[in-house]
């Protein structure tokens, strides 16, 4: 049964990848990358069950944490063109 779940997740992964390649705007690609991250987390968990190695769940947790930080960082980069620059809120307070 885990194999069926893994196959379904792989299909979702392929479709998200297709959107990342097709996507007309950068935001489409980012949304696809976000979905790929979520599906990869689930796939890691399922592979852990499939091979009987629950350590894969730790990998899934770390991957999820990195995925969020990555998405926010790329968004900030496209908005300000620089990762070191503070956002609007920080400027207003200063």
């Amino acid at each position, binding site marked *: 049964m885990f194999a069926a779940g893994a196959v379904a997740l792989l299909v979702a992964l392929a479709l998200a990848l297709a959107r990342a390649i097709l996507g007309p705007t950068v935001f489409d690609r980012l949304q696809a990358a976000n979905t790929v991250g979520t599906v990869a987390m689930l796939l890691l968990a399922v592979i852990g069950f499939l091979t009987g190695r629950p350590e894969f769940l730790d990998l899934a947790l770390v991957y999820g944490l990195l995925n*969020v930080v990555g998405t926010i960082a790329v968004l900030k980069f496209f908005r300000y063109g620089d990762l070191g620059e503070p956002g609007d809120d920080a400027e207003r307070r200063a």
Partner: protein
Amino acid sequence: MSTPVDILSWICLVAGGAFCAIGGLGLVRMPDFYTRMHAASVTDTLGAGLMLLGMMLQAGLSLITVKLIMVGLLIFFAGPTATHALAKAALARGLEPLLASEEETSKR
């Protein structure tokens, strides 16, 4: 592992996989960015939730279940945050949502 729990986790895993695939399909087929975001949220909520629930039923009461709950909480909180930031950034960049044309709206 007792059989009813096995069947229940089967159903959860297959339904979760189906919802993940449907979300992926929506990501390819939907006409504009904001509707695609809506389709992707199906994968984030129902797909992920059902798959994790199915795996939790398989694992029983153990450390694995705790880790699965952690993964679920991470998706539950981080997914909407990233989606919100993405939608705000797209709106700030001036990406217009696809709306019905003026003539169709005035006919109503």
